[in-house]
């Protein structure tokens, strides 16, 4: 049992507020839902919409079909009336536009007029929320509290918006009583949170004390979250003049002694790659979150892609170890970003976390996370155990030198160098030391490989097909497997979070047992499938690729699998 809502309008019509109020209220009622955002790279006008899917069991992805279309403007109707299901209804303002005569699904509610009655036509979005709330047959009591929180201290605004809500609610209720049967709600309050907020919170809770970045969609939300916490939680959030400065600041902070991170998208990361190489050479722990959007160059700034996998795998000149992680779900992202910080400290290496716009901007209702599962192991040398003279790059069997923070041990100094260096950190050019230092650093590759989680398995482990995926597409691919199962096609999803060094055991296990193999990726060239081939020699039979800037839908995946699995 589920209800799907599509809400569309122009930038500047208060869509964000509508979604915030709805999401917050639904989460407090304990509903399981997912809310995704499709928006244009502009501040006013254009066409933006959100999809909201409320279901009895955790919805893994949004679906293309809507039960309710909330059309804040005519364009929303024009573009999305085809998305409406058989019993779908259209909530709209008849003063803004008229529906065609033959359109029998309309539910007119005069958003602006009712808002004007409540005090200001700008509150039309509150009227719309109230009207939608009535269609969902929910109790109005929950909403005023959220308005009070949003506009704290502005009594007049609060009164006006509550009046607007109530007007919308009453008007819609009178026209469509018990329109839609809602799935049952859960028992407790849930969080309403998006991907960037999850990552920001994970960084904060991992003990990140320095964050520098240059704002870039779709990564900016991480910075916004952390900046909001900086004063109360004692972390420094610095908006750098460019991404080159951002990564070098983060490296300085890490050398100085705190966990640090930077976040950006592909274009900004392009500017960071020399700094990434510096992290590799100086063996300075660093976490870089790359929230992917379609490139090349400026590409589609507000849209999604998984096109930068190859780039982050090889970014930076020279050869140095790194780990690349991604996440399947919001929960996975929370704990995996913590793992990124842990790995960076333990192996004194850069760790990249790959997010994308689809993950960054997707809200979910979620149980609070268990913070006691988070690690904070700095892996620093104890001053008492340090062999003197202290050498930052002292040779050790495993390649990991004892790491001391500058200023902590009288008589001993900590020297790091971008040039090739000796154990003390001093610049060298001799062949023997160069080889020894390269070998020392590259030993971490095997250590990092041992830390990689094998991909998750959904399904019986064998069957007509094996579907491979990575990162934020997990929900969609899982729903596709369910869809196919209902149609009698049994198969397995193998989905990766840790990407590099590539975990290979399950691949080797499951590949021979599968019928046809598929790899689904939000890019044009099948980068992950190619990585698997490079690393294992295993060749997937079909790439399922989407690179129009939009996330997959389960139906698209299922159709591709069906087309090829039987042949």
């Amino acid at each position, binding site marked *: 049992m589920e209800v799907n809502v599509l809400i569309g309008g122009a930038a500047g019509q208060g869509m964000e507020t509508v979604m915030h109020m709805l999401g917050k209220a639904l989460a407090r009622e304990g509903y399981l839902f997912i809310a995704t955002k499709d928006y244009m790279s502009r501040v006013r006008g254009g066409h933006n919409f959100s999809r909201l899917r409320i279901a009895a069991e955790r919805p893994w992805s949004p679906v293309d079909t809507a039960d309710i279309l909330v059309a804040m403007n005519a364009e929303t109707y024009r573009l999305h009336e085809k998305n409406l299901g058989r019993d779908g209804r259209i909530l709209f303002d008849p003063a803004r536009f008229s529906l065609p005569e033959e359109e029998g699904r309309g539910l007119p509610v005069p958003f602006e007029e009712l808002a004007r009655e409540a005090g200001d036509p700008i509150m039309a979005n509150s009227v719309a929320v109230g009207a939608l709330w009535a269609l969902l047959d929910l109790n109005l009591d929950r909403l005023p509290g959220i308005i009070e929180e949003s506009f704290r201290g502005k009594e007049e605004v609060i009164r006006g918006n509550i009046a607007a809500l109530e007007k919308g609610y009453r008007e819609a209720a009178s026209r469509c009583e018990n329109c839609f049967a809602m799935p049952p709600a859960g028992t407790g309050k849930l969080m309403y949170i998006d991907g960037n907020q999850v990552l920001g919170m994970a960084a904060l809770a991992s003990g990140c004390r320095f964050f520098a970045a240059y704002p870039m969609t779709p990564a900016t939300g991480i910075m916004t979250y952390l900046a909001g916490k900086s*004063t109360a939680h004692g972390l420094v959030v610095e908006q*750098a003049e460019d991404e080159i400065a951002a990564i070098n600041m983060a490296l300085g902070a890490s050398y100085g002694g705190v966990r640090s991170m930077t976040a950006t998208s592909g274009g900004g990361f392009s500017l960071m790659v020399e700094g990434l190489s510096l992290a590799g050479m100086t063996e300075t722990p660093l976490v870089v979150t790359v929230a992917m959007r379609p490139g090349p160059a400026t590409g589609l700034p507000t849209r999604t892609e998984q096109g930068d996998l190859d780039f982050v795998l090889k970014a930076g000149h020279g050869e140095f170890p790194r780990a690349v992680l991604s996440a399947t779900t919001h929960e996975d992202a929370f704990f995996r970003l913590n793992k990124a910080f842990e790995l960076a400290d333990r192996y004194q290496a850069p760790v990249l976390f790959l997010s994308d716009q689809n993950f960054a901007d997707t809200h979910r209702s979620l149980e609070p996370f268990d913070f006691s599962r*988070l690690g904070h192991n700095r892996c620093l040398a104890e001053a008492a155990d340090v062999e003197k003279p202290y050498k930052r790059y002292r040779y050790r069997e495993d390649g990991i030198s004892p790491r001391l923070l*500058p200023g902590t041990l009288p008589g001993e100094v900590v020297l790091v160098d971008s040039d090739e260096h000796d154990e003390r950190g*001093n610049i060298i050019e001799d062949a023997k030391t160069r080889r020894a230092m390269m070998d020392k650093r590259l030993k971490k590759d095997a250590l990092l490989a041992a830390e990689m989680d094998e991909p998750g398995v959904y399904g019986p482990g064998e069957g007509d097909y094996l579907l491979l995926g990575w990162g934020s597409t997990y929900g969609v691919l899982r729903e596709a497997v369910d869809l196919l199962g209902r149609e009698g096609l049994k198969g397995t999803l193998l989905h990766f979070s840790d990407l590099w060094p590539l975990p290979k055991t399950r691949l080797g296990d499951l590949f021979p047992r599968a019928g046809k193999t598929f790899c689904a990726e939000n890019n044009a060239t099948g980068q992950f499938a190619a990585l698997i081939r490079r690393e294992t020699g295993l060749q997937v039979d079909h790439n399922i690729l989407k690179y129009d800037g939009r996330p997959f839908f389960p139906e698209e995946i299922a159709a591709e699998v069906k087309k090829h699995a039987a042949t």
Partner: protein
Amino acid sequence: MLRPEDYLTGEPAWCPGCGNFAIRKALSQALAELSLPPHRVVVCSGIGQAAKMPHYIQSNGFNGLHGRALPAALGIRAANTDLTLIVESGDGDSYGEGGNHFIHNIRRNPNLAHFVHNNQVYGLTKGQASPTSQMGMVTGTQTEGVLAPPLNPLALALVMGAGFVARCFSGEAEHLKETMKAAITFPGYALVDILHPCVSFNKVNTFKWYRDRVFLLDDHDASNWQSALEAARQWGERIPLGIFYRVPRPTFESAVPALQGKPLAGQPFNPASLSRVQEEFL
């Protein structure tokens, strides 16, 4: 009691007669006279001949990327406000590759001393023009001579609001040492542009060229911005040396709430204690 020789380490790979030797010596004397133990000092640098200083001065060192010493230094500053922070770099590192950071670092005003070894030429890459090279100077890559006028770092710093702006000459050892001490102890960003000869690649601005022109500014009011700008703009037959401007303004450290207590580095942390941050999402 620390002596200047306690700060000397390594064997400099500079050319005999290079002005960097005098700058290194002055730095070691300044650190000794300020009684700053090596483990409490960080020398942060980029790339270039000047940027090799962390290898030749006994202290903590961050020898990072070309042009990026200042951003790295800001991060070090944020992580540990207790350390004495010195940025050592050349004219190409600071004003060319790192020009954007130079500007924005002045705005931020972190507490650090920035010693720019300005020899008006690129040394490590063997003799190309730097942002401060004189117009008309012919090099292997400026075959018709330098076409653009030189960048004036001190005037730029003043206009951007830097609180400490000084010019030194490697041949004026005592003045250099005292200015370094003043810069290190100044609360905020302190820029010292240090003129020095490149014996291998700059045949125009030789030791004698500088010696014939530089003079110590006396009777100068370092709190007068207008006079400072006049001094910064004076170049040619007569080149003034001195602390042109010295007026503290609020620092990065004083403005960032997270930096008001103990240094962030080394503070204990327990993730589980932060579980409450989830409440705002409920």
